[in-house]
């Protein structure tokens, strides 16, 4: 039997990359893509642990993560579009009106 540790390590690396992307990128769409990357990294860990423990609960959890991610992307992109329509910009720095 193969070990699942490399999969978990890869998942950790992808999660960290997504985290850095959320912190550094300024375009709201790219920030969203990085959030998707983090969710996918979690899914990989869930599927790997499902294989490790020999039951399918991990795969079910990954499936639910996908459902939630789909709903989140739909609402998030609608918000980005609304902001773009009023402010003509997709940058996360421009939507700072609540500060003042």
């Amino acid at each position, binding site marked *: *039997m*193969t070990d699942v540790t490399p999969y*978990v*390590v*890869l998942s*950790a*690396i*992808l*999660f*960290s*990359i997504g*985290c*850095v992307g959320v*912190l*550094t990128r*300024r*375009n709201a*769409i*790219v920030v*969203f*893509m*990085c959030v*998707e*990357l983090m969710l*996918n990294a979690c*899914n*990989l860990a869930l*599927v*790997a642990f*499902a*294989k*490790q*423990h*020999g039951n*399918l609960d991990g*795969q*079910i959890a*990954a*499936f*639910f993560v*996908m*459902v*939630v*991610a*789909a*709903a989140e*992307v*739909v*609402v998030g*992109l*609608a*918000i*980005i*579009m*609304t902001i*773009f329509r009023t402010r003509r*910009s*997709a*940058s996360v*720095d421009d939507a700072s009106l609540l500060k003042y």
Partner: protein
Amino acid sequence: MTAFWILAPVMVLAALGILVVRKAVHAALLLAVVMISLAVLYAVLDAPFLFAVQIIVYTGAILMLFLFVMMIVGVDASDSVVETIRGQRPLAVLLGLGLAVILVASVGQITLGTVVGLDAANEGGNIEALANLLFSRYVFVFETTSALLITAAVGAMVLAHRERTGPRPTQASRAAQRVRDFAERGEHLGPLPAPGVYARHNAVDTPALLPDGTPAESSVSRTLAARGRIRSAPDLADDIEDVQRALGGLPGGSGSPGDTASGSGHNTENPSAAAGGPATDGDPGSEAPR
């Protein structure tokens, strides 16, 4: 394990690419690489159902949604380079590296024991086993996702819906507005002029010439002008002459092959020549008529 060692570097490189590419479209394509590779890894990890769902839902639906929104927002809405918070970017990279080191080190320290494997759990088929779990132990979660999905759908519709504040402009009101603009500001009343149509060539990137020989800027698309792709009529004439000289200068039979080549080239470049004026035929030195 071979698939993992091939795909893992590809995935990490593509994910790092998302961090550095300027254009959002390139980031979306790199994300597609990561997601398809993940789907293959799911297949390797005995999850054929998630393999299909990953490709259909993520690369099929979610990434297409990203691309659609990018089309609406504008493909060239690239990232700004200015930092709004001083030193945020290096600090974020440092923190990310720290997170990666901590996670990888802690995962590397633990021993997971022997892998049980999904052969027993997948015995009656992976999809059947997943369905058994989904509709027994997780049935309430499954029902709750329906509420989540319908809320998301309604929310997206409410957010994307635009209330029309004024009356819808009709053809008559548009025409009246044009006439008003002409009366008040002297704006051009008729349609815009067509791009240059000359005796020897025509193209949408070549402006039409006014009677005094100056190019009419309004005759070519503003998009082409913004990209700097507009060519002047004499430039285009020079290009055509270069091509004709190259075709006519072929070695071999001095007369007929070169003549036919230049003649056929002439016809393809110049559909209006037959109707317009065959006067420039056989006269490669002349410029476009002004």
